[in-house]
C-alpha cells in the first residue's frame, strides 16, 4: 500500500507536484465521503443519540442492567475514584451534583458519589428500527412500491420506444427522416424547467394529473436514447436486414428478432441510465403527483422531511434507502457508467 502511494512516474523521487496531486485526491475523497458516511452512520443511531451534541461517531446506546431489588433497569456507569481506581456501578438516581449508585455485585447497599467522577457506559448498537418503522408507521412502503413501478415501466418503455425510433432513423429511407431526426435532437437542448407549466397542463388535459402514468409517459421518449441507439444501429450491416427480408421476415420481426438483440450493449447502457434517472427524478413527479398515496420515494421523502423535520433518525434512514439502489448499480457497473458519460456527455 505504501509502495503504491509513494510510487511516481519518475522512478525514485517524489516531487512537489506529486505531493500536491495526492493531497488533492485525498482531500477530495474525504470531502465526498465524509458527509455520506456521516449520514449513513447517523441513520443507525437511536433517536436520543441522533439528537445528542456533541455527536458520537459510531452508533451507540446506553448500557442498562437489571439489579436485584429494583423494578426498572438501571443504567451502567463507569466510576473513576479519586485514586484512579475504576469500577462499574449502576445509577439509582441523580440529585444535583450527587449521584446515588449501587454496586452491581452487592445490590443491597447504595452509596453516593459526585457526578464528576462517573461517566455513562455505552456500547455499539445499530438501531435497525429506523429502517423498519417508517415502512410500517408511515407511507414509505407505498412510496418505494410506486418508485419501483415507475422505474421498471418507464425503463422498459424507454428501451422499446427509443429503439424503434432509432431503427426507423437508421435503417429506413422515408420522406422527412432528417427533419424528424433534427427535431428530436433539438429537444436535447430544451430543459424541463422551461416547459414545466404547459407540460403539466397537457397532463391535466390527458387526465393524467396525480397519476403515475403521467410521470412515466412524459419521460420515456428521450432524445439521448434515440441518439445513442441510432449511432449504434448504424454499425449494424444492412446486408443482415436484406437477408432477413429475402427470407420473408416482416419488418417488425426484423426489429424484434434481429436488430434489438444486436443492440444489447447499447440497450444495456440506456437501461442503466434510465433506471438511475427515473429513480432520482424530482421536479417532474413533484409537479404531477399531489396525493401521498401516489408519491414516489423522492417526493415522499421530501414531504416527510418538511412535515417531521425533527425525526432525523427516520429521515436519514430513508435517505440511505433512496441512495442504496443507485449506489449498488454504480458499484457493479461503474465502468459502463463513467465511459457512457465520457463518451456521450449525457447524465
Amino acid at each position, binding site marked *: 500500500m505504501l509502495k503504491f502511494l509513494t510510487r511516481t512516474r519518475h522512478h525514485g523521487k517524489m516531487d512537489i*507536484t506529486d505531493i500536491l*496531486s495526492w493531497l488533492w*485526491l485525498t482531500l*477530495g*475523497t474525504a470531502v*465526498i465521503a465524509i*458527509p455520506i458516511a*456521516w*449520514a449513513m452512520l447517523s441513520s443507525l443511531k437511536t433517536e436520543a443519540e441522533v*439528537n*445528542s*451534541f456533541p*455527536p458520537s461517531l459510531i452508533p451507540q446506546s446506553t448500557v442498562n442492567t437489571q439489579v436485584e431489588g429494583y423494578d426498572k433497569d438501571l443504567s451502567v456507569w463507569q466510576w473513576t475514584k479519586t485514586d484512579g481506581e475504576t469500577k462499574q456501578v449502576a445509577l439509582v438516581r441523580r440529585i444535583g451534583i450527587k449521584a446515588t449508585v449501587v454496586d452491581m455485585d452487592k445490590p443491597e447497599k447504595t452509596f453516593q458519589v459526585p457526578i464528576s467522577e462517573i461517566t455513562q457506559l455505552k456500547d455499539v448498537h445499530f438501531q435497525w428500527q429506523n429502517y423498519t418503522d417508517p415502512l410500517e408507521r408511515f407511507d414509505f412502503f407505498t412510496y418505494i412500491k410506486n418508485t419501483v413501478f415507475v422505474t421498471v415501466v418507464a425503463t422498459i418503455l424507454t428501451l422499446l*420506444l427509443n429503439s424503434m*425510433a432509432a431503427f*426507423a*432513423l437508421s435503417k*429506413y429511407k*422515408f420522406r422527412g427522416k432528417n427533419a*424528424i431526426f433534427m*427535431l428530436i435532437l433539438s*429537444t436535447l*437542448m430544451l*430543459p424541463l*424547467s*422551461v*416547459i414545466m*407549466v*404547459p*407540460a403539466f397542463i*397537457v397532463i391535466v388535459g*390527458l387526465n393524467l394529473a396525480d397519476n403515475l402514468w403521467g410521470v412515466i*409517459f*412524459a419521460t420515456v*421518449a428521450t432524445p439521448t436514447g*434515440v441518439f445513442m441507439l441510432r449511432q449504434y444501429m448504424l454499425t449494424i450491416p444492412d446486408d443482415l436486414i436484406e437477408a432477413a427480408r429475402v427470407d420473408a421476415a*416482416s*419488418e*417488425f420481426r426484423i426489429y*424484434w428478432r434481429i436488430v434489438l438483440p444486436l443492440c444489447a450493449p447499447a440497450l444495456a447502457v440506456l437501461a442503466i441510465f434510465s433506471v438511475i434517472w427515473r*429513480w*432520482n427524478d*424530482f*421536479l417532474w413527479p413533484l*409537479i404531477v403527483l399531489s396525493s401521498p398515496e401516489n408519491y414516489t420515494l*423522492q417526493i415522499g421523502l421530501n414531504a416527510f422531511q*418538511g412535515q417531521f423535520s425533527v425525526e*432525523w433518525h427516520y429521515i*436519514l434512514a430513508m*435517505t440511505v434507502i*433512496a441512495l442504496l439502489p*443507485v*449506489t449498488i448499480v*454504480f458499484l457493479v457497473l*461503474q465502468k459502463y*457508467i*463513467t465511459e457512457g458519460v*465520457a463518451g456521450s*456527455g449525457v*447524465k
Partner: protein
Amino acid sequence: MKNLSAFLFSILDRFMRFVELPTVYLQKKIGVQRMGYLFVAPNMVLFSLFVFLPVGLAIAYAFTGGTNMLIWDRPFVGLENFSRLLNCGSYMNPASCEFDLFWTAVHNTWWYTLLNATGTLVMALITAVVLNRLTKGKALFRSIFFYPVLLSPVVVGLIWKWFLARDGLLNALVLDLGGERTIFLLEVWWSRFWVVYVSIWFHMGFFTLIILAGLQAIPRDIYEAAKVDGTSEWRQFWRITLPLLTPNLLVVAVLLLIRSVQVFDEAWVLTDGGGPGTANTFIVQFIYQTAFSSEVRLYGLASAASVLMGLALLALTLIQVWLAKKAEY
C-alpha cells in the same frame, strides 16, 4: 433463474407475435421503406405531447391572463405579463419592481450561476488534470469523484442539511476548534455559500469526466517532446494543456452556465424552499411557485417568466453550438 428468464422471454415473444400481425398487414399496404413512419410514430407522439405542444403552449399562455387553466377560458392580454415582470424602478434593486420576487430570483440566480460555474469549472479542471497524471488508481478515483453525480437531489439536500444542522458534524468540528456554533442554513450569506458549495460537490464529477475525456484526446507525443526539452510539468500545463484544452473548456463553461441557470432541486431541499426568507429563491422556483404552489395560480405570468428564461437559455445554447463547432476544427 435462467429457466425463469427464458420462460418470461417466451411469453414476451408470443405477445410480440400478436403485435406483429397488424404491422404485417400495414407493411403490405404502405411498402417496406415507409414502415419507418410506423417505428418512429410512438416516439413522435410523446415528443409532440410533452415537448413540442408545451413549447407552443408556453408562448400562448404567456400572452393570456386570469387563473383559468384551459386556454379557451383565458383572456388575451397581449404583453401585459411581460411588462409586469419587467416593470422595475431599477433593475439593480429588486425592491423597486412590481414583482420583486421575480427580480430577487433573477439576482440570486445571476450570482449563483457566476459562482457555481466558476467554482465547478476550476475544481473540475484541477481534478481532471490530477486524475490524468495518475498511472494507477485512475479508475478508482474517477469513480469516487463521479459518485455524487448519481445521487438524487433530495438525497444530496438531506445529507448536507444533516451535516450543516445545528447539532451537525460541522458545528461539532467548529466548536472543537474553538469557534462559535452557527446555524449555517438560517444565515443569509452562509446559506448562499453552502448552496453553491453543495452544487459544486454534487455536479463536479460530471464535468471532471468531460474535461478528462478532452485531456486524453491531447496527443501524448507533444508531452514527450516537451519532456525531452526538459520543460517542467507546471510549464507544460500552462503552455500545452491549457491552450489545447481551451476550446473544450469553453463548451463545458457554457454547458455549466445553462445548467446553473436552471438551479432548483437540491437548493430547494437544502434551504427548505429558498430560505432564509428569499435568500436562495431562484428563477425556476419562482416559476414553480407562481404556477403550482401559490393560492392564485398565475399560469400566464409563470409562462412569461419561462419564456424569458427560455430565451436566455436559447442564447447560451446557440453560443455553445457555435463553440462546439469551432472546437472540432
